[in-house]
């Protein structure tokens, strides 16, 4: 019998941590959980653990407190495993140069000696710790009822991409890389135990489990994208067997049911369906194995907890505009990367998805919504035009207004002081940042202006200043599109990066900065700004308008990045909307 290990699973990702804890418990080990750094530190100080499992995406601040304790402790500790997906950009993993297993006190030999006394799990860990990849793989393959490939490959991928390639070539020819999502283990009665884990701070495992339990997902269900879907599906089935069909159809219904994401097992999201009104800001996680898209929704409509809050950056790679104000986002880059399908992104972009797929999904989700239980409080509403016009064709309460969730706070600039709210009762507006990156293909069908205006209105109480902000934003966006991207892109991969920084109240004035950067070659902005050049005709005067309606207009880099700054009195209830007089007497053409 394997020795019973004392295990500590630490991580603020309840879903992933719970899944891993369940797995270890099922192996007969004693598992303690720590949901935060403080709890982990206390437990490590009190008890010797044989195995530590730490979520790689544990918050960096928490890690900074936890890791010194782990490293400095002399308790008997076996291994520190990070749950990582291939290509993960975990800040913690980067800081730690994580190889999947971090050797702690006792050294490798002590670790190996200890673990070698145990059973299968320990054998695997010993092989992994010893860098014996082939032995590790052999141990896996020799075990008929355990499929740990995804997790193993994830760890190995972090350890060495080259080594992984060698393993794949020599030991597992033809086996594509799998991610760490799912551990499957056939049970005695023929059922398959799916252990769903996710290193991200989401409730995805529980959600998928709920969907599975209620029969929403089945092996016969497949949502596809024509030829692309067939290829993906075939590949997954070939890799995983029939279970792949289940996982290919994994749907995440999140945040009141207005955002659905379709996942493949272990390979990150393939495509994302977002049933949202056009113009709603779309945000994505900037870290993790693959970029995850979501829309920000009011927290009260997010029954899945905080998993939808805190996205930092948006990268819209391809958007299919589906009739009925639906957006369909495709992570074409991830597809091309994970599946090795060159040119897929462009192909996906060209074959924009029409209503059939989305309608099918919406219909089925809606019809099955009552079956979903517990924390999956689905309030599905497809936001079809007829419904949006006032016909209550969907069940549940009407959707609340979508909004942008404030992102990371920005510190004040050096030497500047934050003003304090008078009387101490009111809080000073908090600095907020918004980022949006849209590629050329997406810009053909996606207008970033409405979302940007929403973000500005959300970030700062612009009041009547919204109109001049809108004018400036419109000019800068159009300039970037027409004269930045259009001149260089064609069918290429240009993109537009939009930043909005509300800096709070500085010296009694609200400060807001808008930046627009295109991937074009820039232009001779100095000549335009100085008035040396001017133009007449359809194009012109964009810079003059932007400069006049903003407090300051600065061009950066080679002229492909422009920043417009705005300020207005903090204590002015209804400030003047616009400057009284234009600053420039000379019409300036746009770029």
């Amino acid at each position, binding site marked *: 019998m394997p020795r019973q290990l004392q295990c500590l699973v630490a991580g603020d990702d309840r879903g992933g941590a719970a899944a891993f804890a369940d797995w270890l418990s099922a192996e007969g080990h004693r598992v303690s959980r720590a949901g935060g750094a403080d709890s982990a530190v206390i437990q490590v100080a009190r008890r010797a653990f044989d195995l530590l499992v730490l979520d790689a995406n544990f918050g960096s601040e928490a890690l900074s407190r936890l890791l010194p304790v782990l490293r400095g402790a002399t308790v008997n500790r076996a291994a520190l495993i990070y749950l990582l997906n291939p290509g993960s950009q975990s800040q913690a993993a980067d800081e730690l140069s994580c190889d999947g297993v971090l050797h702690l006190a006792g050294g490798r030999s002590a670790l190996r000696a200890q673990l070698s006394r145990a059973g299968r799990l320990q054998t695997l860990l010993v092989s992994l710790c010893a860098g014996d990849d082939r032995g590790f793989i052999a141990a896996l393959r020799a075990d008929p009822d355990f499929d740990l490939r995804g997790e193993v490959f994830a760890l190995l991928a972090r350890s060495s991409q080259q080594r992984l390639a060698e393993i794949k070539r020599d030991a597992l020819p033809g086996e594509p890389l799998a991610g760490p999502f799912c551990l499957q283990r056939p049970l005695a009665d023929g059922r398959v135990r799916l252990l769903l884990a996710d290193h991200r701070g989401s409730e995805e495992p529980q959600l998928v489990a709920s969907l599975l339990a209620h029969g929403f997902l089945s092996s016969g269900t497949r949502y596809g994208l024509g030829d692309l879907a067939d290829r993906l599906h075939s590949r997954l089935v070939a890799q995983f067997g029939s279970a792949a069909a289940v996982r290919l159809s994994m749907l995440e219904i999140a945040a009141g049911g207005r955002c659905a994401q379709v996942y493949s097992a272990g390979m990150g999201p393939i495509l994302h369906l977002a049933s949202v009104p056009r113009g709603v800001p779309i945000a994505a996680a900037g870290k993790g194995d693959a970029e995850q898209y979501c829309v920000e929704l009011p927290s009260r409509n997010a029954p899945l907890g905080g998993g939808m809050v805190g996205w930092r950056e948006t990268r819209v790679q391809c958007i299919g505009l589906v009739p009925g104000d639906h957006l369909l986002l495709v992570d074409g880059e991830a597809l091309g990367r994970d599946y090795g399908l060159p040119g897929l992104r462009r192909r996906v972009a060209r074959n924009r998805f029409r209503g059939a797929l989305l309608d099918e999904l919406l219909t089925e989700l809606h019809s099955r919504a009552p079956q979903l239980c517990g924390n999956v409080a689905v309030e599905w509403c497809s936001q079809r035009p007829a419904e949006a016009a006032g016909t209550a064709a969907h069940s549940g309460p009407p959707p609340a207004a979508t909004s942008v969730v404030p992102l990371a706070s920005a510190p004040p600039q050096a030497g500047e002081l934050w003003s304090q709210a008078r009387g101490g009762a009111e809080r000073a507006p908090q600095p907020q940042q918004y980022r949006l990156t849209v590629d050329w293909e997406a810009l053909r069908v996606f207008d970033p202006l409405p979302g940007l205006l929403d973000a500005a209105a959300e970030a700062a109480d612009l009041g009547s200043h919204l*109109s*001049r902000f*809108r*004018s400036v934003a*419109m*000019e800068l966006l*159009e300039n970037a599109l027409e004269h930045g991207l259009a001149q260089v892109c064609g069918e290429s991969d240009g993109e537009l990066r939009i930043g909005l920084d509300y800096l709070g109240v500085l010296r009694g004035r609200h400060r807001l900065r808008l930046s627009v950067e295109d991937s074009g070659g820039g232009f001779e902005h100095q000549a335009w700004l100085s008035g040396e050049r001017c133009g*007449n*005709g*359809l*194009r*012109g*005067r*964009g810079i*003059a*308008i932007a400069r*006049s*309606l903003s407090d300051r207009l600065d061009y950066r880099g080679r002229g492909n990045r422009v920043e417009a700054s705005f300020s207005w009195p903090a204590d002015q209830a209804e400030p003047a*909307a*616009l*400057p009284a*007089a*234009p600053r*420039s*007497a*000379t*019409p300036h053409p*746009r770029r």
Partner: protein
Amino acid sequence: MSVTSSLSSDGRQFTIAVSGRFDFRVYESFRSAYSGVSPAGIGFQVDLNKADYMDSSALGMLLLLKEYVGGGVQIDIVNARPDVKNVLKIANFDKLFQIH
């Protein structure tokens, strides 16, 4: 957003009305609104009462209209909202058009 045009009953006043966003999206419709109209002997008026806002490409469209009707014909821009009027002033269009 839309562009409509009308000729007064006495045939002496041609009015182009823009609603919504007055930007590059209405370029074609704005241009086609007056392209068949002979400017001789009539006055031109652009009614921006329902225009939410305008951008620099709209300014260009107004310039094209001015070029079309020729220097001897006056173009009145009427009912512009304050925001829109401010954009016109920034571009010094108050020197090129009669803004009411």
